[in-house]
């Protein structure tokens, strides 16, 4: 495989396209509403209405507007694409008929809606456009050219430099500079190095990585291969949650196809560079999103974290230097190589560069995935793109960062979305889940919900997290049952501080965040539930001790 061959595949594939394409979203969301049946019906209708010569029905990945699914995009009919929403299998005849000017009462979406218009797509550029199960589709839009450029024209150090220049920061949540991480792994001595892609998207309310893996698996594989060249690794692991069966099967297909074309495996692009990727399937443990726990899981062990240092960059999988990045981080790489680090750095704010994908869910009109430049005010995302809360209710707060993040009250909606600003508010960027809550939501219940999550997901290795989350949950339970006093609240705050500062890994260190942030902004809701202390404020309050409970 060489550049000419790549271009030949692209040319042949583009040449075989028909005039009009019906793009059927076949991502997990739309699939749950029978997108596969819809596609079959559309194909049958195209044949039945004798439009075979000019119309093709294609499988594509996620278009983003999941709440309006199943979605069908139509290209080639008019200058602008047409988008059918809430499609049902029985609508197939009408949709195909409408291509010839027939009547069709299926809801048509507005491609200029702020939900689409305000987006800037880099990571999700191919979502809803390429067929995730056909590598030719990815090659046809210029895929694997970045890898070719890197392998034939750049030195590994130049690749690291380009990524450093881009200012890309880890999209898993913590925001560590990606270039710096790559540089450290590249410099670490060792004959064997590994690349790990963290696809253990455990945050409830987040599904960006699932969508990328399902819609455009090759962009992640290409990013991993470029990273492997930059740091000197020849083996990669893609760790995916078992809850994402569609993503797993599409990745398996993608790896097989890339290997068949010599884009993965030995001697890629006829250079001496070798790179293999194996899929590792998670088994339902939230803690495995933490990098050291994830590595234990890749090694086939219980997914418990270990103290850092040594960092994975020095001693990771089987003691070898290991580069761990999130799915979204890897998905940015090919664009950075193609368009240059400076181009990427021109997007976003001073400290947070590029774009970020968010999963907009909860009590909001427009549910789905959006990709926006960093620094965009939260208000634009929630009110303009998301359309605010449904049923005439008011947005009360936005939860970002999952169980490790916090709740941002509606008063702060003017905050720009970047790593630092969200941290200042007591929340985090996290992996990109944004759950909107309206004024009917009880914030203490939400804090309890997250604490229960952390309690169940605590791996049990360190005591502050294992025991602390149980105690905090019990206290929250007591508060919601209206049995707690001011003393219990004080104890809860004390515990938050203790668990945060003494836990071993990120799970425990951030577990109190939802409580701390709701206490900060919605303290009144807690206080309204408190009972007067029967022993008076200065007693030792023996009777008020929370009952000892074990998990």
């Amino acid at each position, binding site marked *: 495989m060489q550049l000419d061959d790549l271009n030949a595949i692209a040319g042949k594939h583009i040449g075989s396209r028909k005039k009009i394409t019906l793009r059927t979203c076949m991502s997990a969301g739309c699939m749950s*509403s029978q997108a596969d049946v819809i596609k079959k019906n559309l194909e049958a209708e195209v044949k039945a209405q004798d439009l075979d010569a000019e119309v093709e029905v294609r499988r594509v990945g996620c278009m983003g507007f999941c709440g309006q699914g199943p979605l069908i995009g139509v290209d080639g009919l008019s200058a602008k694409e047409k988008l059918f929403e809430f499609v049902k299998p029985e609508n197939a005849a009408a949709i195909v008929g409408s291509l010839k000017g027939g009547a069709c009462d299926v809801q048509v979406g507005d491609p200029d809606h702020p939900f689409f218009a305000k987006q800037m797509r880099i990571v999700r550029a191919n979502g809803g456009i390429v067929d995730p199960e056909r590598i030719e589709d990815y090659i046809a839009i210029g895929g694997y050219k970045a890898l070719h450029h890197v392998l034939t024209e750049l030195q590994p150090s130049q690749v690291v430099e380009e990524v450093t220049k881009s200012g890309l920061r880890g999209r898993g949540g913590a925001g560590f500079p990606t270039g710096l991480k790559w540089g450290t792994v590249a410099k670490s001595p060792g004959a064997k190095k590994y690349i790990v892609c963290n696809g253990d998207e455990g945050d409830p309310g987040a599904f960006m990585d699932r969508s990328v893996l399902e819609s455009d698996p090759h962009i992640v594989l290409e990013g991993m291969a470029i990273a492997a060249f930059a740091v000197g690794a020849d083996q990669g692991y893609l760790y995916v949650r078992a809850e994402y069966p569609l993503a797993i099967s599409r990745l398996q297909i993608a790896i097989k196809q890339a290997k068949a074309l010599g884009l993965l495996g030995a001697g890629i692009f006829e250079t001496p560079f070798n790179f293999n990727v194996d899929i590792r399937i998670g088994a*339902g*443990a939230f803690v495995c999103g933490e990098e050291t726990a994830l590595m234990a899981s890749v090694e086939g062990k219980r997914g418990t974290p270990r103290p850092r240092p040594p960092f994975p960059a020095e001693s990771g999988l089987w003691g070898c230097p290991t580069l761990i990045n999130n799915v979204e981080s890897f998905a940015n790489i090919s664009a950075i190589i193609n368009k240059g680090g400076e181009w990427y750095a021109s997007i976003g704010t001073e400290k947070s560069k590029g774009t970020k994908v968010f999963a907009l869910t909860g009590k909001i009109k427009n549910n789905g995935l959006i990709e926006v430049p960093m620094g965009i005010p939260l208000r634009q995302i929630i009110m303009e793109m998301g359309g605010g809360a449904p049923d005439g209710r008011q947005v009360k707060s936005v939860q970002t960062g999952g169980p490790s993040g916090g709740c941002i009250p509606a008063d702060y909606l003017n905050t720009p979305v970047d790593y630092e600003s969200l941290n200042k508010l007591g929340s985090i960027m996290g992996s990109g889940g944004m759950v909107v809550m309206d004024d009917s939501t009880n914030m203490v219940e939400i804090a309890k919900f997250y604490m229960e999550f952390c309690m169940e997901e605590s791996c049990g290795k360190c005591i502050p997290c294992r025991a602390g989350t149980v105690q905090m949950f019990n206290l929250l339970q007591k508060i919601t049952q209206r049995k707690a006093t001011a003393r219990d609240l004080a104890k809860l705050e004390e515990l938050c501080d203790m668990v945060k500062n003494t836990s071993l890994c990120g799970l425990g260190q951030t577990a109190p965040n939802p409580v701390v942030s709701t206490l900060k902004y919605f303290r009144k809701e807690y206080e309204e539930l408190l009972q007067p202390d029967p022993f008076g404020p200065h007693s030792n309050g023996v009777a008020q001790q929370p009952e000892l409970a074990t998990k």
Partner: protein
Amino acid sequence: MNAAVATPQKNKIQALLKHASGDKRFKILEVHMKKHQFRQDALIEVLHKAQELFGFLEDDLLLFVATKLKLPPSRVYGVATFYHFFQLKPQGEHTCVVCLGTACYVKGADKIISGIQEKYKIKSGETTADNKLSLLTARCIGACGIAPAVTYDGHVAPKQTPELALEKIKTWI
């Protein structure tokens, strides 16, 4: 492990391997292990396959895996119990997994759970007495755009309500 325990254990393994030779599923599992070159780090992959074949992971099956991968049984059992995805008890004929991710939760997934619990008198993680229905919960299946989502026998259904869920389950029982 002391010698007194070691002998019955050895006998047990031998009996197990003999029993396994008559069951095609063990054969398939062994082929799968071979595909991974009996590598010990493939344990989780092997357990996934085992659960797919047998439905759940019983002790003998774990011992079989341990023997074949040359791992201590404690390690295999430790891994099987650590991850939520692995089931150590047999499941009912049908499974209903209610997603309890945040997006589903704020849109009323808790009401779906309590609706089913009330009607069929089972808690999450339990199976009905007639072995027809297992009720499970998931920590986000990534279908947040169509919340609340429920997985019926492996098929995700969008925008569920307690009524829709009970209606679906009724067709099974």
